[in-house]
């Protein structure tokens, strides 16, 4: 269970950073950056996570990129989730009234400044709820690390079942453990959403 929490938190942190950068790329005035952002999002968003993980662990090792199974998982989960974060943040950016960016430009701010100081803080406020969805999805996706022998919740349950041959209590227990992780994070995101909501 600790492995699952650590996997989720580190992957989510990586995904938030990368995803925000990619979102900035996608709305930037520089066409190559926009294209790079689009490619990143479409490649990762439209391929199965299992395939990405196996590709990274067995394939990329051959070209010299070998990390432990745990680090590999964080990299793959982080990259995969960043695509969803990028799209969510981009929708948030688009939801910020056009006048805000125009006003910022009028006072002489550069594009990074406009984004960082004016637009992104407002954008994040509107996308707290969808980011919560992404976080919960990621928590459950970490179970895929079981295929590369990472001892997270699902793998532990699987091995326990092999040893005891009692699938009902074992997997029911694993399901409950996931609920224990995901339900509070859902509530936490709900609280955060209310806290940063714009009062109208």
């Amino acid at each position, binding site marked *: 269970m600790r492995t699952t929490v650590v996997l989720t938190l580190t992957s989510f942190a990586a995904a938030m950073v990368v995803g925000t950068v990619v979102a900035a790329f996608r709305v930037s005035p520089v066409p190559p950056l926009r294209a790079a952002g689009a490619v990143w999002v479409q490649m990762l968003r439209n391929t199965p996570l299992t395939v990405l993980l196996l590709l990274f662990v*067995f394939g990329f*090792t*051959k070209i010299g990129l*070998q990390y432990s*199974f745990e680090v590999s998982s964080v990299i793959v989960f982080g990259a995969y989730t960043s695509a969803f974060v990028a799209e969510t943040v981009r929708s948030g950016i688009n939801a910020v009234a056009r006048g805000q960016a125009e006003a910022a430009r009028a006072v002489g701010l550069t594009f990074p400044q406009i984004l960082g100081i004016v637009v992104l803080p407002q954008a994040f406020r509107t996308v707290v709820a969808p980011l919560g969805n992404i976080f919960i999805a990621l928590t459950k996706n970490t179970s895929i690390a079981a*295929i*590369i*022998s990472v001892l997270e919740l699902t793998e532990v349950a*699987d*091995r326990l079942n*092999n040893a005891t041959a009692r699938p009902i209590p074992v997997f029911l227990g694993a399901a409950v453990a996931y609920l224990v992780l995901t339900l509070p994070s859902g509530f936490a995101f709900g609280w955060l959403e209310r806290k940063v909501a714009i009062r109208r």
Partner: protein
Amino acid sequence: MKRSRWLLAGPALALALLAGACGDDQNPALDNGGGGATTTEAKKAAPKFDAGTTMDTLQKKGSIVVGVKFDQPGFGQNNPTTGKVEGFDVEIAKLIAAGIFGGDADDAESKIQFKESVSKNREPFIQNGEVDLVIATYTINDTRKQVVDFAGPYFVAEQDIMVKKDDNTIKSVNDLNGKKVCTAKGSTSEKNLRAKAANADVTLFDTYSQCAEALTDGRVVAVTTDNTILAGLVQASNGAFKLVKAPFSDEPYGIGLKKGDDAFRDFLNDRLEEIFDNGEWAEAFEETLGKIGLDTPEPPKIDRYTSAGGATGTTGAGGSATTTSTTAKP
């Protein structure tokens, strides 16, 4: 899903039969051309069996259905180029068939219809009469003896260890303690490993080829499972891996047949002992498993256990075995 499998199996089977038939046409021609008068060995005539026995029924029908694996290198593997199933299990099937229909293993091939058996469908295939025999890396154990009977064993696989070619630090299962070892999830190999090397750092994958990848990449230092599977991986590695040859468990492979058919079982056991003694068993081994790097072992000891639900007192098999060994030119 099921339908498409059969659609594929149909032509494959037809090809196999066709290939078998072709081979048969060629063999006598080769024999005649090469030796003129057959001085080396006279061909065996079809033996006579007591009426009502399974052997007699099969002989009259002129064919036997044998379930084998189609995907196990060295034992039963479908060769896509020839359309034939090849391997040690297939050779054993031919030798058994030769004991029923007479002639040698090559003659008997045309009488055998090979049916693909996977691990899960072996018992139902036997029980429903879909196949007459199952020779498919079928480990003899007490649970299975409840529903089917076993002749043999005709081979005993052993759990062994595979390492990189230049690794000389691992010499036995004890050396795996504290090392990173790969095997398949939920397999008997995993259970044996944990029992024999409790402190091994175990990496579990779904397939053994993934374990081989991990060994190549240096993520693990050893892979463990049946020596027969490892031998196939060693061969596929082009010399990158080697077997430690320090086996630490036994998996006796038997011939599965319908439960309670003791006369047939006795016949099969007699026939197995016959091919153990006359060298045909060793020859079959060298041509199949020998080619993937396994040393020919001593033939195992036949286990003539008393079947729990079987009819006792049938004596047909003893006499028929003697007829099998009488030789005459057909």
